[in-house]
């Protein structure tokens, strides 16, 4: 299990190569990269920040849960922080499994769940301004409703 938050370039090929083992029949890789635009606005770079200790703990939990839930053999989950330019890898997910079905499912579940629950944020720097990305709504079991919505 390789779960990391890093400030360095993610060595994707190296991580994929080292995860493979004899009993695997499939390796699924999700390589999340910085796109050159958001809804047509030209992106210069992204700044990622995290609640670092909590984010790492949540990522470890996701990796463990993926193994348990989908029965895959091994997972690598690496997220980079700091300033990233177009084309660079922000997150790498590698899932190794005896069979492809479980590897695909686990890989998809990992990125989708990470994007909803792991405390990492990105600020998008465009040619004409900067904004914090909207982010994904928290799942109900995590969100804290505003006081006026309680009771």
């Amino acid at each position, binding site marked *: 299990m390789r779960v990391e938050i890093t400030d360095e370039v993610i060595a994707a090929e190296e991580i994929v190569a080292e995860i493979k083992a004899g009993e695997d029949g499939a390796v699924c890789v999700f390589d*999340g990269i910085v796109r050159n635009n958001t809804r047509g606005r030209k992106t210069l770079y992204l700044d*990622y*920040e*995290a*609640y670092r*200790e*909590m*984010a790492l*703990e949540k990522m470890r939990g996701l990796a463990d849960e993926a193994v348990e839930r989908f029965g895959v053999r091994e997972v690598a989950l690496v*997220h980079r922080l700091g300033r990233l330019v177009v084309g660079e890898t*922000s*997150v790498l997910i590698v899932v190794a499994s005896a069979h492809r079905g479980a590897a695909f499912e686990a890989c998809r579940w990992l*990125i989708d769940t*990470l*994007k*909803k*629950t*792991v*405390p*990492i*944020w*990105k*600020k998008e720097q465009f040619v004409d301004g900067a904004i*914090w*990305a*909207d*982010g*994904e*709504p*928290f799942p109900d*079991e*995590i*969100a*804290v*409703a*505003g*006081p006026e*919505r*309680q009771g």
Partner: protein
Amino acid sequence: MRVLYFGVLKDAFGRGDEEMVLAEGASVADLITACRGRYAGAGKIWDSMAVAVNQEYARAEMVLGEGDEVALLPPVSGG
């Protein structure tokens, strides 16, 4: 207690963390109410956020203690 701000809230408050003193028995919801009064610029944020107490997601009714580390978390956008 130590209160941490992230993302858009960090920009709004101009700092990443501060010490706060709340009344005995104050809850997560009380903390949000206290902070909300200082920043009206993102009404949406206050209704769509999460709060972590000692690095674990917490419910609104959770009572806070003096030594707690409480983080106000806007919707996340990693990946």
